């Protein structure tokens, strides 16, 4: 629902931020942060996603229902990943062969 006409300025700002963040994530990847590399990379990706979703996809001015729909999608992806990992991450924890 984009009845609210956003300004050229706000769109351009978001566009430039996305480019800067892309450059940043590429650069940060060359620095060794150990396990934090993944965290930082995903964090930046999430920020970029939020910028695209909220501003380019007009989610900021959408109804609560649309926001719930998007949130639900994120939550369901999380369920798939987390519960599956409850298996893969705990294999070998018990001294039972094959488990």
């Amino acid at each position, binding site marked *: *629902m*984009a009845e609210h*006409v*956003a300004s*050229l300025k706000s*769109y*351009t700002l978001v*566009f430039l931020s*996305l*480019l800067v963040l*892309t*450059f940043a*994530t*590429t650069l940060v*990847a*060359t*620095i*060794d*942060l150990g396990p934090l*590399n993944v965290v930082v*990379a*995903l964090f*930046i*990706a999430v920020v*970029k*996603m939020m910028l*695209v*979703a909220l*501003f*380019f*996809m007009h989610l900021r001015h*959408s*109804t609560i*229902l*649309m926001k719930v*729909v*998007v949130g*639900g*999608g*994120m939550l*369901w*992806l999380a369920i*798939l*990943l987390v519960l*599956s*990992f409850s298996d*893969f*991450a705990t294999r070998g924890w018990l001294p039972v062969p094959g488990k």
Partner: protein
Amino acid sequence: MDSHVELPQLQEQFETPAQQKEVSTLGMWIFLVTEVMFFGGLFLAYAIYRREFAAVFGLASNSMDVWMGAANTAVLICSSFTMVLAVRSAQIGSRKALIVFLILTIVFGGVFLGIKGIEWNEKFVEHHVPGPSFHLEGTEEQGPAQLFFSLYFTMTGLHALHMIVGEGLMLFLLWHAYKGKYTPSYYTPVDIGGLYWHFVDIIWIFLFPLLYLIARHQH
């Protein structure tokens, strides 16, 4: 009943144009959620195997051309920018601007696919395509190495397929924009076409760091 006669785009089952627009937008967002779950299965497979074979995946990721990947990311971001400007043009009734921005979006999309094609060809030449002639230098674990590239090709391939569908959608919008079909009171297809396009951009926003930036610090 009169409103149905004055606005040929208002479908019978709706009471008002506003209802029709809201319904179309809601429908597209729900469709995008199904796409999240569709790609989600691939992200799960990726996460599991990356955790299991961290070193080999890092090695394989480093064989990717990070600058082509980054360039492609920038290209898609540009295409999202032109897309959102296209929607804005439709909103304010600038038919010419709408057409220009749609064309730019299509061009950026084409550039993305072109770069992807070059990359894939490079992978083929380097023997990084899973199959009998696969070989990744620097590791004994050729199986897991192939796994990385299987995931790479499946994920970017599925993404590219969505891009191609997106290009088709854009051409459809371009044609109808040229015919003058979109006005400030009816530009829903441009709006929801934009939603689809941005979503495909978001998928790539995740694919880029996950596939190209795993172990760059270990170069």
